[in-house]
């Protein structure tokens, strides 16, 4: 299943149950991981950066909240800030907006995935994990259309299967995998 091409970035979207799923994925990621990992986890407006602090405890790779105009670097996990959409510019920096909610969400997975797809094109991996609404299902289509790789967490395993099923129903999906398999995949693609 490993495709022989060089990826440049990984985007992940999740809501309910996401903290556990993300920390599982990040557990084994080494500090010098050769790609940036950019995450939208639906979150409440406050506290402002508890999520980053918790995730940092679980992994060796650097975790931080994405800042506007920040240059995207390999080996860093970026989390979308609460109450802002996170977008990626052509020059591989972040932008933030307070535009209206997308799929009842800000940050929204669709917004990140769509802008990432238009920048990274076929060199992007998009992953949808557990979640309770259909945010991300347009985003995966944008990635798929640009020949990026779309992975969805196995709905049977997900704490909440609504988001994975919504993504799968778009048919814009390359692989449906359990967390341990996604984890293995993330480690393997960089070999």
């Amino acid at each position: 299943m490993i495709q022989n091409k060089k990826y440049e970035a990984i985007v992940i979207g999740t809501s309910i149950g996401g903290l556990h799923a993300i920390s599982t994925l990040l557990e084994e990621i080494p500090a010098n991981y050769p790609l940036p990992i950019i995450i939208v986890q639906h979150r409440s407006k406050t506290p402002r950066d508890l999520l980053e602090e918790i995730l940092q405890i679980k992994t060796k790779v650097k975790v931080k909240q994405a800042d506007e105009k920040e240059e995207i670097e390999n080996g860093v996990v970026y989390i979308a800030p609460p109450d802002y959409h996170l977008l990626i510019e052509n020059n591989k920096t972040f932008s933030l907006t307070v535009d209206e909610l997308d799929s009842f969400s800000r940050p929204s997975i669709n917004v990140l995935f769509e802008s990432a797809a238009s920048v990274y094109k076929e060199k992007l991996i998009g992953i949808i994990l557990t979640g309770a609404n259909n945010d991300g299902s347009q985003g995966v289509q944008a990635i798929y259309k640009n020949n990026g790789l779309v992975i969805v967490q196995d709905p049977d395993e997900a704490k909440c299967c609504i988001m994975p099923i919504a993504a799968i129903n778009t048919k814009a999906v390359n692989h449906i995998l359990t967390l341990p398999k996604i984890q293995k995949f993330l480690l393997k693609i960089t070999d």
Partner: protein
Amino acid sequence: MDFIKMNFDTKELKEMLESIRYVYGYDFTDYAEASVKRRVLHFMNSKKIEALTDLGKMIFADEKLFEELVQTMSVTVTEMFRDPIFYKSLRENVMKRLATYPFIKIWIAGCATGEEIYSIAILLKEEGLLNRSVIYATDINQKSLQIAKEGVYAVENMKSHIANYQKSGGIESFSEYYKSKYNSVMFDKSLKQNIVFSPHNLAVDKSFNEFQLIICRNVLIYFNQQLQNKVINLFHESLCPFGFLGLGSKESLLFSDKRKEFEEIDKREKIFIKKISDSK
């Protein structure tokens, strides 16, 4: 919205923004591109316009359509007492110093639909400063400005507004500040008496007064570094010595060459004070 079928390259977009600047005087060329692109796609989708070149032809033939595009490109959403801790900090760190001025001038730059204006007016009222304050509320978006002026909001958002108000340290009964009718609430006239509403375009317009406090939250994030720098310069020029500047929680003076001429008084809430210049 179906973004998947539509796309265009950035060069095309840049050319259109240049033409808009030339023909209509609206300058979006220094806006952060990703969100401009998203908004233009939004607009094309809502109007069922498939190609950017078509949109280009249409807006130069039809000024009304262009106005609609401007609305779409410049609209922002906000809420009352958004980030309550910011307002708490204003209460604690700024209001007392504002009270030392006989006459207080405040500029809310990018006031959007006005929720922030009424939040500030309420703070001023509770500190006994409203009668000697003037709030200049500006936005590029005329439609938003009209909503701000009317001060009428949907009743279903009031619950979260009230919660925000309380978190900001508000202890009055919030319902005193508005009247409910059908599904709307209207803010009290006494809050509105000293507000001046005016269109202002941060990308091209100049300074128009001197202020003790400028609030511009979640506007700079839409601009590129050069425009951010230009706008911070405009604010610096428009503030009195020791005047205050309040930005959005993810904004900074990082890209401004005036950053050393401000002192941070609340690092987390992004409230700054203008230092007095040592000559120059």
